[in-house]
């Protein structure tokens, strides 16, 4: 997936995560994460973000995420949505 512009998805509501993705030329994935459950789930949220980007073929991006206790499925959905908006593409793999 080719990232074209900065994009975001999600909200600051409890149970959600707000994800912002900035395209990079190189340097891999950098992640800046804050979470209301950092101690218990910070590690897991980072894994899910990297996994999701990996599945979408995103290799270089600066990701910042503000988590308010989102479940794994929510994290995945918000990261995907942000990535597709970044790429100005439609996600036709849903379902």
């Amino acid at each position, binding site marked *: 997936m080719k990232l074209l512009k900065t994009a975001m998805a999600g909200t600051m509501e409890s*149970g959600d995560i707000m994800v912002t993705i900035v395209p990079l030329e190189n340097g891999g994935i950098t992640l800046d994460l804050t979470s209301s459950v950092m101690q218990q*789930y910070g*590690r897991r949220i980072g894994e899910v973000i990297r996994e999701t980007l990996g599945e979408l073929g995103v290799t270089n991006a600066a990701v910042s995420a503000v988590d308010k*206790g989102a*479940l794994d499925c929510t994290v995945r959905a918000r990261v995907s949505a942000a990535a597709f908006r970044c790429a100005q593409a439609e996600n036709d793999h849903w379902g």
Partner: protein
Amino acid sequence: MDELKNIPHIDEIAHRGIFAGVPPKHTATFQERTARQNKVLPSLEAAIRATGLKDGMTISFHHHFRGGDHVVNQVVDTLARMGYKNLTLAASSLAAVHAPLIDHIKSGVITHIETSGLRGDLAEEISRGLMDCPVVFRSHGGRAAAIRSGELHIDVAFLGAPSCDPYGNANGYSRDEDDAIACGSMGYARTDAKYADKVVILTNHLVRYPNAPWAIPEYDVDYIVVMEDIGDPKGIMSGATRYTKNPKELLIAQTAARVIDAAGYFYDGFSMQMGSGGASLATARFLRQMMLDKGIRCRFALGGITGQIAAMHEEGLIDRILDVQSFDLDAALSLRKNRFHHQIGATYYASFLSAAAVDQLDFVILSALEIDTNFNVNVLTGSDGVIRGAIGGHPDTAAGASLSVVVAPLTRGRIPTIIDRVNTIVTPGDVVDVVVTDQGVAVNPRRPEIAEKLRQAGIRVYTIQALKDKAEALVGKPDPIRYTDRVVGVVLYRDNTIIDTIRQIDESPAE
């Protein structure tokens, strides 16, 4: 008169010698006397000096003013100005409003704290290692027992009172027609007043003698200080505690009511206590309807009392209320006007050293921050390991009640409530009987007969392990909280043995 030594057994029956006349009788009216000879001192400083307080001693406070308390901060500020150091502060509990204590700890005025709970910035700082000596956490019953046994010796008690007469008869309300502030019951202060070496009452409302009914009698009081401000009425008492509208909590409450009925503890003449959490309060609402439907009454309700319990009393559904702490203004007003709404002290409420009202409970509904697969309950530290709660009467009532029901949502946001091991054991699983969540009920294997009765009533019973797995399937398995080795809090069970410790949270960057 016979020679004393000639009277047989005189040493055993009288020691004070022969009558030698009486001092002059007073002749002034009692009103004049009240104005001239009383215990009122001109200032807090004067009262502190009069008590003989010295560095290294223990001072105590009650928490009936909750978040509206202005007594603790004013007294400790004054002690700091007077140059006191190395004091132990033993409060029945502390709230977020007591954050100014942080500076007095840093400057060495306060070097040890004993309390039921901590909240806000003070709790955060202590969790980060503010104090060298660990904070001692006791239940309300454990504190009362420790004060009576001398394990917690109070040198000077500073007790705020919304009404007091010039001799020290003090109460949390007044039956005079006035609009003074009220906190209702002063149950936790009564133990301090009885056992402290010196007792200072701080009041903003000096009333005429005799201030009956009283919570604290004048013979337990040494000095009185009239202060402009002892607390913020809005923080001391809100109106009625509201019923929750949260559907999860309502479901939990409804299930808890069904569990009590099915377990056989809902009969004409039962006794109960409700915790102050949303779901446990809501349980009263479902019990009320069941009482009306079945035509049965509750003999007594115990504990922290809310407006809902007071309303059920006024409706004729609850015969007696035993009130150690009034949670809201409606409860305080009921204590003032209803003669069978009775104020009790902490010792009679919950001390294990003597007959206590908790021992007469059929059931108690309690909340929890965490419950583990051994049924241990934590109500003191948050899921991040930081102190943010209070033990209260949790272990006392769980141990005393024939059926203790702990109610909690299975998850709060992403945080699971049921886990392998609670961060801090406050109430041991040995006294927890049933756990009710929005996603299922678990019964302690110690009580197979309860599990059987629930099944017969059509309530599905899960193992606690199954509930834990359910929570984990939803939110994933949390990484453990990181602590340092340093102990910042020692948690005592109601018999004052050490049941757990709280360690300083580790905020160094994760590897």
